[in-house]
């Protein structure tokens, strides 16, 4: 039994590694050939283009605003999670007792 | 005969346990726990476990109470 014999491809990591290295070499060569070496690192070219603003504070998007759309969409879910797991000491034992009781009911077959 | 001993001691155990949970004054609760431990010691002795009884008397009744009192002294006496 070859457990890594996947249905559509054979897992040959060295092959894939070779492809990765080859691609990297190709990218480096293309970069050396076609892109300019005298790329200006002093003036505004090095800074990220940010919708035309020149305010340097806005050039960094903070981590907490990175997936705001995702968060906003799933607001109901996150509020439920926050209400369920309040991360108190009594919260731990509460869930523990509930799970123990539920497992007892399921495993001993009282429910069916 | 032993049954009545067990009954009385069990009632005493439950009462002292309830009291030590009930008191909002932590010092009172701990004294109650100390009594609980002593009663438990007697019960262990009646259950023919003298080794456990000695250990419970030394650790449960004396030392646990001691460190609880010290901890209360470093914090505050009443539950808020």
């Amino acid at each position, binding site marked *: 039994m070859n457990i890594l014999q996947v249905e559509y491809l054979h897992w040959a990591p060295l092959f894939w590694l070779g492809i990765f290295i080859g691609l990297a070499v190709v990218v480096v060569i293309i970069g050396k050939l076609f892109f300019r070496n005298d790329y200006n690192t002093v003036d505004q070219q090095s800074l990220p283009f940010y919708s035309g603003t020149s305010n340097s504070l806005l050039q960094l998007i903070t981590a907490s605003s990175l997936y705001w759309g995702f*968060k906003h969409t799933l607001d109901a879910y*996150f509020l439920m*999670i*926050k209400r369920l797991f*309040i*991360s*108190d*000491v*009594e919260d731990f*034992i*509460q869930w523990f*007792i509930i799970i123990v009781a539920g497992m007892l009911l399921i495993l001993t077959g009282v429910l069916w | 005969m*032993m*049954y009545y001993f*067990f*009954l009385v001691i*069990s009632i005493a*155990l*439950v009462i002292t*346990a*309830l009291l*030590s*949970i009930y008191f909002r004054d*932590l010092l009172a*609760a*701990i004294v109650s*726990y100390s009594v*609980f*431990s002593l009663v*438990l010691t007697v*019960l*262990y002795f009646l*259950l*023919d*476990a*003298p*080794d*456990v009884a000695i*250990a*419970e008397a030394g*650790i*449960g009744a004396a*030392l*646990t109470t001691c*460190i*609880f009192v*010290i*901890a*209360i002294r*470093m*914090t*505050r006496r009443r*539950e*808020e």
Partner: protein
Amino acid sequence: MSAIVLYVTFILLLTIGIIALLFKRNLIKIVLAFNILDSGINLFFIALGYRENAMAPIFTPAPLDSVITMVLPTPQALILTNIVIGFATTALMLGVSVLTYRNNNTLDTRKLRGVEEYD
């Protein structure tokens, strides 16, 4: 036979401990509740090894009868271990709660409520 009162006491102590863990909010009181819960389990172990009209498993004071009965020794040995472990747990928890009080100036779990992970 009717000494089932010991098992019932164990269940009552366990339930008292759990209820106190659930509804008490003082850190030191929680440690106390743990001790009660642990005592309940210790009592259960000792009650498991009890025999009526027997004697402690020590030969020194035993009568010179032809047949003597003794209670089981293993639960007693285990409970000796568990009592010391319980004391160790208690000491550590009390030490940490003292430090918590020093850093936060409260022992109430509601006031110590942790980091708000989602806003």
